[in-house]
């Protein structure tokens, strides 16, 4: 019984998986036309290595985002919305990218220095200096 089910189910599963992965490979235009995205990426002078790197980058980011505490249910949609260049940037240097947060991670000694620079108009850390 189980065997019969498997015999019918397996080809269906294989077909479903293959079809599911097609959109990633095929051009979105659908009828063999060169897509705008492919034409643009062909215009840029990039090596094949860089292109492969961009594809792999998205897998990298998934792991990094989960490690940074992002809800796994959100990760897929977040990665999908990145452009290729942004994905590569995230994969390579997420740790160095500035994260807008408005929080001072500085010591008290720094407080005094920043107070002076605030008054000089070089920085804008403390609202009361204005």
């Amino acid at each position, binding site marked *: 019984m189980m065997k019969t089910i498997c015999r019918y189910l397996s080809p269906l599963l294989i077909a479903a998986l293959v079809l599911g992965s097609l959109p990633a490979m095929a051009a*979105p*235009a*659908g*009828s*063999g*036309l*060169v*897509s*705008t*995205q*492919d*034409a*643009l990426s*062909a*215009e840029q002078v990039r090596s094949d290595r860089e292109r492969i790197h961009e594809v792999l980058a998205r897998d990298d980011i998934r792991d990094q*985002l989960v*490690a*940074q*505490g*992002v*809800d796994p249910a*959100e990760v897929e*949609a*977040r990665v*999908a*919305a*990145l*452009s*290729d260049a*942004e*994905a590569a*940037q*995230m994969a390579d240097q*997420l740790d160095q*990218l*500035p*994260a*807008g*947060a*408005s*929080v*001072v*991670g*500085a010591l008290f000694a*720094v407080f005094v*220095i*920043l107070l*002076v*620079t605030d008054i*000089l*108009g*070089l*920085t*804008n*850390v403390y*609202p009361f200096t204005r």
Partner: protein
Amino acid sequence: MTSSPLRHPARRGLRNARPAGVLALALSLLLMAGCAATPQIDEATLASVPRQALLDDVPFHGQRDYQCGPASLAMALEHAGVDAEVDALIPQVFLPDREGSVQPEMLATVRRHARIPFRIEGDMDALLTEIAAGHPVVVMQNLSLPAWPLWHYAVAIGYDLDAEEMILHSGEEPRRRESFRAFDATWARSDRWAFVALPAGELPAGARPGPATEAISDFERVQGPAAALPAWEALAERFPDAGMVHFALGNARHAAGDEAAAIDAFERAVARQPDLAAAWLNLGLAQEARGRSDAAAQALRRAAALSGRWQAQAEAALESLEERHDP
């Protein structure tokens, strides 16, 4: 500090040393921060923008905790017609362990909400031009010094050229006024990173064909050609001489099923940029699909004659066309 019960001779020396120390500190800070001067604004910009501008219709969302990224996004998106709540944006853009939001994800989140993020040029001219055109600008600032960064997102909603002040929805403060000098000093530390979030069909006032094409193409990859079509139409209208833009417009029209209009756009593309092989190839394939084999063969021959990434594909398409029509 002012009065000391014990007056040592040694303290005298210390007191003399104090002004020198303060001077040295101030000088070293100036070196560290770079000399902040009031930014220069181009004569052409001054002639084209009003002396004052304030976008009254940008809603304000105060940030909580470290949520200046989601709050700034909510303001920009809401102004662009998206009903975006800060609470809904937090899981989409915030990185809990970094306690902040990074630039690529700020742009990506705009795409998720079916708006196009356009980076603008990093100078005061571009910033004032966008605000004068009615576009609020999300800016990244480092409010502190490079050594102890305090990264911050805010939304620039206005300026006053006479008072030399920017007006920003920033942090917990709506319509905060910052002098041009202090604003530019803090903005410069993010390499003057800034973007506008616009519905498809609207373009930044200072759009340039190359970057705008990239921005719309990245949007199209996420939201599909139907969503991007109005943006391509607008870009082709703004830059009628850019071959690549007409090519992209042709693709979007083709995806929407409007073959005649797609062919028209591909023809414009090759007329403006005769070495655009991908446009010749698509023109040929689109003509073939409409049953015009002579026009198709003509275009495919042009594509096949151009060396590059699409040559093999063009040769194959030409061969199969000729086989079918001259057996």
